[in-house]
């Protein structure tokens, strides 16, 4: 947990509207755990004012510049352009100064990945799942269900395949992979692998559906949640989600930034669960693919 004044190393569009950014990030290979995130400061100016939270896609080393210098550490994030902050981000280049606060938050529980694992991701939700997949001891026992509204939203397929993780792609409009919701695929895969633990990240409607499926089947589920954040460190109390047993009379709120973003689904309240991502996910598909 540090604030690094650092620089962008690269920034590339990997699918229409989705960018992958590499950022110089000392110590992250040692510190970052799957499921954690960073608070990213887009520029030194006051607009946008607040940092933006992004999941860590991976941490790695760059080849050293010369023999006597140690290799440089970086992280990668993948982001979708949705508003003012991400719009500015897409214009960043090698060398541009940025700030990284992190790594922050809880990660996935790796102990749960010793047996079969099903990773379920919608759109940008694949980001933290990739680092989780990297950490799974027997990748062949894991599989990842990659969902999206249309083909543009399908990211990181090859990256998972390179790890030896089996991938299942589905889109709502059928423009890539199976047609339908990723949760339909989940139900099918759970029948094949009834012992598998499930790990999910994606838009709130997907998360809710996954939770219901897992609860009905009594399967252990870990979810990565999104909430609007101001500080990322537990100070502002802006980012709470409702904890298990939450009622209006006896409310229970847990910080997504410190207790989460990864929660055991059983630790959260699931009735009428509101979240920022409900709002964020509302945009129509603009890829132009015909269903």
């Amino acid at each position, binding site marked *: 947990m540090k*604030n690094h004044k650092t620089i962008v190393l690269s920034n590339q569009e990997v699918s229409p509207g989705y960018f992958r950014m590499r950022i110089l990030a000392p110590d992250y290979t040692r510190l970052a755990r799957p499921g954690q995130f960073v608070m990213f400061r887009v520029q030194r100016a006051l607009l946008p004012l607040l940092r933006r939270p992004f999941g860590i896609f991976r941490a790695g080393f760059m080849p050293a510049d010369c023999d006597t210098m140690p290799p440089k550490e970086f992280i990668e994030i993948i982001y979708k352009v949705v508003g003012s902050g991400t719009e500015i981000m897409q214009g960043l280049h090698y060398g541009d100064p940025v700030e990284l606060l992190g790594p922050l938050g809880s990660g996935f529980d790796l102990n749960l990945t010793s047996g079969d694992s099903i990773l379920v991701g919608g759109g940008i939700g694949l980001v933290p799942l990739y680092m989780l997949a990297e950490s799974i001891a027997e990748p062949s026992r894991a599989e990842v269900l990659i969902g999206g509204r249309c083909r543009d939203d399908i990211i990181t397929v090859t990256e998972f395949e390179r790890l030896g993780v089996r991938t299942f792609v589905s889109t709502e409009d059928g423009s890539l992979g199976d047609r339908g919701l990723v949760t339909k695929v989940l139900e099918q895969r759970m029948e094949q692998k009834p012992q598998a633990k499930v790990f999910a990240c994606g838009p709130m409607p997907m998360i809710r559906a996954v939770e219901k499926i897992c609860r009905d089947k009594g399967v252990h589920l870990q979810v990565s949640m999104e909430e609007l954040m*101001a500080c990322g460190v537990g*100070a502002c*109390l802006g980012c*709470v989600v409702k904890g298990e047993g939450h009622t209006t009379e006896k409310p229970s709120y847990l910080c997504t930034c410190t207790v989460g973003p990864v929660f055991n689904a059983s630790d959260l309240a699931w009735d009428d669960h509101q979240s920022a991502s409900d709002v964020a996910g*509302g945009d129509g598909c603009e890829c132009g693919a015909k269903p």
Partner: protein
Amino acid sequence: MKRREKVEKTVNLQVDIAGITLKNPIMPASGTFGYGEEYAPYLDLNSLGAIVTKGLSLNPKAGNNTPRVCETVGGMLNAIGLQNVGVEQFIHHKMPFLKQFDTPVIVNFFGNTQEEYGEVAARLDELPGVAGLEMNISCPNVKHGGIVFGTDPKAAFATVAAVRKKTSKPLIVKLTPNVTDIQVTARAVEDAGADAISLINTLTGMAVDVKTRQPRLANTIGGLSGPAIRPIAVRLVHQVVQVVKVPVIGIGGISRAMDALEFLIVGATAVQVGTANFVDPNAMATIIAELKTFCLEEGIADINDLIGSLKV
């Protein structure tokens, strides 16, 4: 270049607020720095003028539904709903951490009724390690139909007077800016026994998501903070210092030393940094360093010479 030669070698940043000695005039604003521990990994808490806690109530408070925050141009809205651990938990779980530092701890608190204000104050009064209390009077007065204590000078006077009886610790009263005449409120709380006044709390604001047509905050209305509000805050501090004798702590949109200096020059004895902590967890350390550099460059040996030095 030439200027550098004229420079004094040292500069005194120490200021005094109602008997509390601060190493420097920089402290966090309540609710933007948790209970201190959240920012300890990023900032040396010993370097601060004081630590100001999240607002405490008698009993723990769960706060509002989400969304609780949203960004606006140059600022942010929040409707946290004063979520806090309550005074007992604070004493047992948060205070031990804070006591480790050689930095005065100022505890921000509030109540739903006048009695509750008094009870919290009484409980904190006994507590060793608490250098001072900051009383937030921007809460809706549940007994009087939700009007805010701080917007009615009479209610403000009565509540501060009630708290004053319960504590001999330095009592800072934090004012809301959402009033027609801040000078009236300021005088009322001074008359009621406040040792110092801090301002401003957030301005009430609202934002709408035009696609969903819903307010961006679950609570509809929230508090606006950040650089956007600084001109309003500076104006209010300027108006208050003219009518009270007690020291004033300036708050509102401070991100850099330049911003803090505006408040000091109009007459604030110290300042609080709020939203800027979210933007840069190291903001206060940078501000303290920049303040020192500014004084050195301008040949100011003692920051107290700057306070109230506005030329009109």
